[in-house]
């Protein structure tokens, strides 16, 4: 089984548009949406939810006001300022470290499992999709990403499908690391802005650190040709294939408004670019496969 992960720096590079277009191309696949912080993929995929599961991870302190003598020790010890003057635990600040639980002389604090949101298995017109929705303010964690990816793998095995397309988390923190590990190809989506070029470099540092073969797609390439060229030079320098340049077109937003992938919305124009990008990806995957079986 092979897994492609589409990633980018944080700066809204149109990753979801690229991903949904790729989903519509090539062989059948399972989709795994690990960009759970701001998961937008469903706006294009229109998933029909088949299964919903609670996502429980970590713990949360809870103070029983009847047992609490307001001695203030917990507040003094908590290093995350999660307990306020009225001895209430602020869920968003609590790290679940349990120090207060051990400190409290009155046994007024309990540690409870933390409910962070749901993950789903859904049907879409491009295949089965595993995705998640976090409660507002909940932490995207490596664990949720791993849960989504593991489920996608199991479904792929069940359905006899050999390819998983994963929407990776943005940034360079723990979730993206969890979405990268053991994938066969990382497609890095970049755009030609100063900020995005620096993001690209940081993301590439990660993929190379993990030894994951990567390729680059430049989105909105014609906003700034000289920076696009710089990205191209960077790709050459790092020996990364440039999978394609996508021009900046209003049609990308139009497609979004209609809830379609850009290949569906504009099959001959943007669709053509995406087809070429897909061919490049397929070539890489085939080479990967050969290398690993040889």
């Amino acid at each position, binding site marked *: 089984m092979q897994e492609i992960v589409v990633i980018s720096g944080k700066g*809204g590079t149109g990753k979801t548009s690229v991903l949904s277009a790729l989903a519509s191309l090539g062989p059948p696949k399972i989709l795994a949406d690990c960009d759970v*912080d701001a998961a937008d993929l469903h706006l294009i995929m229109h998933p029909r939810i088949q299964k919903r599961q609670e996502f429980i991870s970590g713990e949360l302190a809870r103070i029983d006001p009847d047992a609490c003598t307001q001695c203030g020790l917990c507040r003094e010890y908590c290093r995350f300022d999660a307990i306020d003057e009225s001895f209430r635990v602020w869920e*968003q600040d609590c*790290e679940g470290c*349990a120090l207060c639980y051990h400190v409290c002389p009155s046994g007024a604090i309990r540690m409870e499992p933390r409910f962070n949101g749901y993950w789903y298995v859904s049907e879409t017109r491009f295949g089965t999709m595993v995705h998640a929705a976090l409660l507002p303010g909940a932490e995207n964690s490596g664990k949720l990403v791993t849960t989504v990816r593991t489920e996608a793998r199991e479904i792929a095995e069940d359905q006899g499908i050999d390819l998983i397309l994963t929407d990776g988390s943005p940034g360079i923190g723990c979730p993206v690391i969890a979405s990268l590990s053991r994938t066969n190809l990382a497609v890095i989506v970049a755009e030609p802005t100063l900020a995005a070029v620096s993001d690209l470099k940081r993301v590439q540092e990660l993929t190379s650190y993990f030894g994951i073969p990567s390729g680059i797609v430049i989105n909105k390439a014609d906003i700034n040709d000289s920076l696009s060229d710089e990205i191209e030079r960077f790709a050459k320098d790092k020996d990364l294939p440039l999978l394609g340049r996508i021009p900046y077109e209003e049609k990308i937003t139009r497609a979004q408004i209609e809830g379609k992938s850009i290949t569906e919305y504009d099959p001959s124009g943007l669709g053509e670019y995406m087809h070429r990008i897909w061919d490049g990806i397929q070539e890489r995957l085939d080479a990967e496969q050969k290398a690993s079986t040889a």
Partner: protein
Amino acid sequence: MRIAIASGKGGTGKTTVAVNLACYLRNLGREVTLVDCDVEEPNCHYFLSPEWDFQQAHNVPVPSIDQDACRGESCLLCVRECRYNALIWMVNHVMTFPELCHGCGLCSFLCPEGAISEITRETGIMRGGKARGIDIYSGSLNIKEAMAPPLINQLKSLAPRSGTVILDAPPGTSCPAVATVHDADYVILVAEPTPFGLHDFKLSVDVLKQMELPFGLVINRDGMGDNSLLDYAKQEGIPVLARLPHSREAARSYSTGKILIEDLPDFIEQYEQMVNTIYSRQKA
């Protein structure tokens, strides 16, 4: 006054708004401090190119075990109780894994022998400097480090309590964003008028409402998409602070790291309106 600039997702033009707002206020003669709290991918300095004159490591506490004082296998309280799996017992000693440690202090508190003390570990750096009369602080988390909030909190503590402090928040609604906005006096949410933009905006609105923070909306690239964002804001009674028009010139100007209100002075009006709305609301 502390104003945080946030967005549900990256790439909405949040940093542009933060930088231009800082420049606009500075041009009015105000004391302005800009804190780039997006420590995973700090970007503000691309637009302002400050001269850095201050640099400091960001350290977090991690345990150090005095193996001679440790009771060993008959105890293992620290190993059992650490919620982050950062300690193990290996043959004849307690081994610490600083990258997994959250610095909560539980193990040193619990150790019956006082065998655990705390040392520090560097997870990033903080820098300070000046550009165009604006004080700038920026933090950068070391690559592969997982925990941004402690660095964000320390970075914010560098900013003065007086004057206007602009906090450029990391995108999203997870803990680093929450850590940035939680003590702000006002939050500006920047969003694009597209279905994605609207969806991400709603998530941010949920969080800010839950945190009981006052906020308003800046629509960036207005005209690129549809009206659903504006309609939603109206329906929810969320003040629209400004509508920054969509243009290729603006996108190009952004891509080269220019200050929009200088490169394209038409935008000044928008910032004026933004500032007036915020300040009049604060007074009210």
